[in-house]
């Protein structure tokens, strides 16, 4: 809120604008608006023949401005580039107006788990995935490949030369991730559980989800 006032009210002339060239910011906004693939700072710098830092500054300013309350759109970093989209909280209202409803990406829990294993352990082979998951069933790999969420990534130099798999840019796009490093570490998951453990009884947070989730997704 304070930030908004700062930017919007107090500073049409000075502060809000001073840290990034308004003309450059305007062009950058226009370009990000039209592109279908997230656009990177270096693509912009190259095409507009402007220093990379200036472009980065413009993008940061824009992202902050879109982040203000009272905005229905967001400009954020996904899959290494920037894109404009509507905010998830207005999902219900917007739905009525959207022409091309994107088909919901229905993934089974098995597919999501396999995807998680690949995301964290990539590049990884099918036998390794099966070993971690403790189940046979490479069927989900085909689903993930067909949906372009994963792709092959060479072969592992062990007997049989099994194919290695890794996640794709589409994976980042569809899950709204900046890059693979944005995923919380597996250790963090452990800590979340440990933190939540003491009051397991009353709230039962992680235990409850562990119990109920399978029924929901399966």
């Amino acid at each position, binding site marked *: 809120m304070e930030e908004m006032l700062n930017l919007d009210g107090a500073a049409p002339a000075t502060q809000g604008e001073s840290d990034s060239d308004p003309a450059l910011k305007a062009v950058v906004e226009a370009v990000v*608006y*039209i*592109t*279908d693939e997230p656009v990177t700072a270096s693509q912009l710098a190259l095409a507009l023949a402007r220093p990379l830092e200036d472009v980065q500054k413009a993008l940061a300013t824009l992202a902050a401005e879109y982040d203000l309350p009272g905005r229905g759109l*967001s400009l954020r970093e996904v899959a290494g580039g920037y*894109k*404009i*989209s*509507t*905010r*998830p*909280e207005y*999902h219900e209202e*917007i739905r009525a107006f*959207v022409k091309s409803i*994107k088909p*919901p*990406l229905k*993934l089974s*829990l*098995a597919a*999501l*788990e396999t*995807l*998680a*294993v690949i*995301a*964290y352990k990539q590049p990884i082979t099918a036998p390794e995935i099966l070993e*971690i*998951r*403790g*189940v*046979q069933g490479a069927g989900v790999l085909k689903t993930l*490949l*067909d949906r*372009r969420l994963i*792709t*092959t990534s060479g072969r592992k130099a062990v007997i049989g030369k099994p194919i290695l798999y890794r996640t794709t840019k589409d994976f980042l796009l*569809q*899950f*709204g*991730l900046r890059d693979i490093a944005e*995923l*919380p570490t*597996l250790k963090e*998951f*452990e800590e*979340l*559980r440990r933190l939540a453990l003491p009051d*397991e009884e009353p709230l039962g947070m*992680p*235990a409850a*989800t*562990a*119990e109920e*989730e*399978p*029924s929901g*997704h*399966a």
Partner: protein
Amino acid sequence: MSSSSWNVHLDQYEGPLDLLLDLIRKQQIDIHNIPIAQITHQYCAFMEEAASLDIELSAEFVYMAATLIHIKSKLLLPRDPELEKIDPEEDPRRELVDRLLEHERFRNAAEMLQQKRMIEEATWSNPQIQSFLDQAEDPGLDVTLVDLVNTFQTVLERLKSRPAYSVEREEVSVPDMIRHLRSVFAAAGKTDRVSAAKLFEAQRSKRAMICLFLAILELVKRQALSLVQGDSFGDIDLRRGDGFDQAAEEIQETEEEYR
């Protein structure tokens, strides 16, 4: 915990790790100190229940049961305290616990991905790049390696479903082509005329063309077939003669003998 309280989930355990984790978490058992006898008992009860309900459990479930029993027996076996001093044995449950914890981490990660996906699904973009693109551009496919493999599979499947004579070209022979000519004329009906060019164009290999050519030559020689040309430089047609069927049959027979 009675066995009936988990049978609602029978078909939901994708693998034994899922089941074990659920047993442990539901009963708030310390995962680092699993009462292996109790868990093994419950696990086996679950398997019996599945069997009684005719639910087919995969081989991993059986394998896990064996692992549990093995751990249980190892724990029961008294260790020589002197030996323990020199070579302290690792807790036999250790490896299983590690696997369970890792499995749980990925289960949580999967849930996290699910949530991220739900948020992403609730956002929309409306790129206007089309209005700035060259309209003439070829709307091709944006291809990946997976597309390449899938495409090749499709091609091969199509190849399999094509008529046999064109597929296994090594098998194509002169008698095959005579048979082919007979069916073509049969289909042509009363006209008795077939375009030679079209016949040749329909062949998919050089060998097939040569066999067709030899078949025609043979039939012409026996005057069962004649070549007609409407006007100079016009298309050449094949015209069926009176003895066509008989001659065709004879050639087929003799050729067949040489094979």
